[in-house]
């Protein structure tokens, strides 16, 4: 795979895996409006995933027939939903990142990436608004919601740091004006997220622990179950079309 394909696939996998996780909320959310909103976010992410995966190969082969080590999403995308607070914490951290990522990529030297980014940036801005409004309501709501929100945030926070890792693929593409520069994204992301957390009366977690490996196919235990569930029909009926 070329560095561009690797990079495109990483972001496609991010969208696919988080979209798949959000789908698990269907009919389970705290109120009907959230069923609509969470599925809407899932739809946006799945839409971006399809566009990105299609730039690398056949979307269904990539989604349904790769084994776990071939998936290159960041681990934060695959984390269990947990309660609604944890899901919103993850969404804040990821959408805060994706807004900046897509913004940067909308002027990428690669037309394919720029095209997806131009559309996704508007969607991510909505996802961020939505997460922002919930993180604030939960953080500054009741004692229970504050505690749950902080706990969810503390849980997912260390995983967000992987989003800003740079390896040779990223560095070489940044030099060519194709990729977004993680060193530029990270401080902007911190500023976005910390502003929301302050408004939400939540503490900004600090973590020396930096789980890593997703970009190179190393995943968490729950990810195997996500894939088993997602892939089982394609794998049970090889060659069938649906």
């Amino acid at each position, binding site marked *: 795979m070329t560095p561009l394909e690797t990079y495109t696939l990483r972001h496609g996998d991010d969208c696919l895996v988080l979209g798949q996780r959000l789908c698990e909320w269907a*009919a389970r959310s705290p109120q009907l409006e959230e069923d609509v909103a969470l599925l809407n976010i899932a739809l946006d992410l799945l839409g971006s995933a399809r566009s990105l995966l299609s730039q690398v190969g056949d979307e269904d082969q990539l989604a349904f027939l790769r084994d776990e080590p071939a998936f290159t999403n960041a681990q934060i995308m695959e984390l269990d939903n947990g309660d609604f607070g944890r899901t919103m914490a993850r969404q804040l951290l990821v959408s805060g990142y994706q807004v900046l990522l897509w913004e940067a990529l909308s002027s990428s030297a690669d037309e394919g990436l720029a095209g997806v980014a131009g559309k996704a940036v508007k969607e991510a801005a909505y996802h961020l608004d939505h997460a922002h409004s919930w993180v604030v309501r939960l953080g500054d709501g*009741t004692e229970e919601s504050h505690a749950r929100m902080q706990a969810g945030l503390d849980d997912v926070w260390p995983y967000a740091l992987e989003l800003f890792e740079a390896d040779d693929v990223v560095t070489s593409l940044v030099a060519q004006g194709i990729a977004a520069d993680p060193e530029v994204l990270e401080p902007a992301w911190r500023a976005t997220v910390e502003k929301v957390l302050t408004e939400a009366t939540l503490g900004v977690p600090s973590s020396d622990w930096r789980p890593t490996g997703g970009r190179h196919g190393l995943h968490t235990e729950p990810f195997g179950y996500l894939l088993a569930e997602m892939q089982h029909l394609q794998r049970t*009926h090889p060659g069938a079309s649906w």
Partner: protein
Amino acid sequence: MGFQEVIDADGRIEPRDEMPEAYRKTLVRQIAQHAHSEIIGMQPEGNWITRAPSLRRKVILVAKVQDEAGHGLYLYSAAETLGASRHDLLDLLHTGRQKYSTIFNYPTTSWADVAAIGWLVDGAAIVNQVPLTRCSYGPYARAMTRVCKEESFHQRQGFEAMTVLSRGTPAQRQMAQDALDRWWWPALMMFGPSDAESPNSAQSMAWGIKRFSNDELRQRFVDATVPQADYLGLTVPDPTLSWDGEHYRYGEIDWTEFFAVMKGDGPCNRQRMGFRVKAHEDGAWVREAAEAYAAKQRAKAI
């Protein structure tokens, strides 16, 4: 114009118009049960979202389940125009005092069930609901216009998914036939008991809430659907089914099963309610937090 004159002139009753208490009550119950059906209906299909066999099918299914949540929202809002509250109506659902469509108490055990639900269940819903777009109560009629557009989209997508399965591998064809076998009769039951055993029908007809009898609508559905099954090369699980020159004559419906499912003894009644109540209870802290936050903001604004 008074209530009866509006009804007689085939006009629309709006929220501020005077209406008999019995009319209001009947509508609240019907609209609420319709809303409950939309949200409980998210479960059997939601059951396959994470396992959908292609990304295209996944996206279609997510959008469909999202539409059903939207239908629930419009319908609860329509009920609220009659003085009910969503909160109270949900409470009636959760405590088993109001019902939802019996169809959603059957399990979706294969992917083909998702296709069959789109084809048959959304198909039957359309036949039931298109006349409601002319219902005498304005907000309900308007909600139905919007809902019916989306349901017909769901029906076409379901039929298309069913077509792919029935033209697919032997295993897929078998899956499709098996789904039709299991969903056919429950789909016919969606229209409710025969006219003779449907005590409220006459009053609802007189009020312009109902336009056609249960049996008329059921017949309309059978006549539209049997040729579709033929096209798919699937067999309708009714050995007595025959064409009489005008209509398809279908066999005896097992009303014992219908009333058992209605009463709570279908294969999934307990599961659906348990799931629904758990989701609601698990979300209580979130709703409470949103209220507490809003109250704090109001206090600050003063």
